[in-house]
């Protein structure tokens, strides 16, 4: 509402940000009730109706059939394209070079990190990330060297998905998008905003520029190389789809908790959820 008061002063570019804000707000409205419900869950694991999920890792996956199909396509794409490229990259570059590339990719994302620290109401973190960006972009040779970390300014990531989480949004439905990997509604909207409002692509160059294309390419290869251990772990999984879903969900929730400082809600280790028969029929006898 406040935004509307300001609209006369704003240019079309400004409106884009408002639009972005509106998308964010809409997203939050949709997701807020779920988040609220989660907040209320006490530390003691209350078995869900479905039986098998724990409070720490309950995943809402209403389009599992579609997602499983997407996952198959995504893994096929990975085997055919991304894995060979990443493995080739890992074979021809020493670890130092890959670390440098990772640093540079992270550094380009730092302005977006600052925006999110501010949106989360964390001025100290925002200042730290700003300093990191300035130091690493200059002394750190365009971000190749994380000089700031050695000055006791370790990286603290933040993105819009995390910001929505801090604002109270739950993850929403799980999604698997080939080429983008695992997502959920909250982080999907978040990632779109990360891209649309990214200061570096706005000021230095977006995807239409050579810089933007190179950046995107390098980011993808770097990400795939960095997640290679996770891909290898999937080889051991009995159900790789569910393992991916579970790991991604936990990873993102931990990332949100990192910003909120909230304690994790873990399942009771010794009380298995009700058996399938019990949960289908009457209520579990325990309690």
């Amino acid at each position: 509402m406040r935004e509307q008061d300001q609209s006369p002063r704003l240019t079309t570019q400004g409106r884009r940000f408002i639009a972005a804000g509106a998308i964010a707000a809409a997203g939050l409205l949709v997701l807020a009730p779920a988040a609220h419900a989660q907040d209320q869950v006490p530390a003691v694991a209350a078995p869900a109706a479905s039986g098998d999920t724990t409070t720490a890792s309950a995943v809402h996956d209403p389009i599992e059939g579609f997602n499983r199909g997407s996952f198959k396509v995504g893994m096929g794409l990975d085997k055919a394209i991304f894995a060979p490229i990443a493995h080739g990259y890992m074979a021809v570059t020493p670890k130092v070079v890959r670390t440098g590339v990772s640093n540079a990719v992270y550094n380009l994302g730092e302005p977006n990190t600052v925006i999110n620290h501010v949106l989360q109401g964390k001025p100290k973190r925002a200042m730290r990330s700003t300093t990191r960006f300035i130091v690493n972009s200059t002394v750190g040779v365009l971000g190749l060297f994380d000089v700031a970390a050695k000055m006791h300014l370790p990286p603290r990531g933040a993105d819009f998905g995390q910001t929505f989480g801090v604002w109270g949004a739950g993850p929403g439905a799980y999604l698997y998008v080939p080429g983008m990997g695992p997502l959920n509604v909250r982080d999907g909207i978040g990632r779109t905003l990360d891209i649309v409002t990214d200061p570096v692509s706005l000021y230095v160059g977006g995807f239409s520029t050579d810089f933007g294309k190179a950046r995107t390419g390098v980011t993808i290869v770097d990400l795939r190389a960095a997640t290679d251990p996770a891909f290898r772990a999937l080889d051991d999984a009995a159900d790789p789809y569910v393992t991916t879903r579970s790991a991604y969900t936990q990873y993102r929730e931990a990332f949100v908790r990192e910003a909120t400082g909230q304690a994790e809600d873990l399942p009771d280790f010794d009380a298995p959820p009700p058996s399938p028969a019990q949960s289908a029929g009457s209520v579990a006898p325990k309690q």
Partner: protein
Amino acid sequence: MTLPGSHMKNTHPTRRGANAALLAFFGAASFAAASPALAQNARDPGAEAFVQTKAQRVITVLANKGMSDAQKKQVFHQAVDELADVPRITNFVLGKYARTISPDQRARFTPVFRTYAENVYQSRIDDYRGEQLKVTGSVVRKPGDVIVNTTISGGQLSSPLPVSWRVLGGGQNWKVVDVQFKGIWLAITQQQDFVSTIDNAGGNIDVLINQLQKSGSGSSGGKR
């Protein structure tokens, strides 16, 4: 992924910056008061000491370059018994099926899971090849149920890797039941993996046992 940004590149940066700052300001203003500092529970020195000693031992073994893979495997096998509560974990990963598994199935599942888990966990820890473990703190969830936070550094790690250990017990008898890194609890993930596999087999636990047996016998899982 960067496509949406492409049509917005040559615009007026100053005004946009101002707008972004404005948006940021309101965001910050309205949410500054929203993060209550959560009171953390007390630490547990006993649990911390246990993890420091036993987990460090496992890491030292796996980082030892002078030891053959076969030797490492054997030492790891022994170290697991000292470090982890294997029967408890075995029961936990079955999720709701822990209530319905037959004694015969349990007798088959137990050794198969043990072999499978040792292979998997060894290669997971091996992926990161750190050398020093340092306890950074712990949180008592309730008496006898503690999360011990550590960082692992050195070796192939370019920056310290935070790893948390969930330990149950008390006094001199602590055991690890789950390990978390990058926010992901291994036993919880394993439970979802297994339960889903059994679900998709129409509740037939044998299907999972056979599958694990197959991947367990195919040399060590995940090794290249």
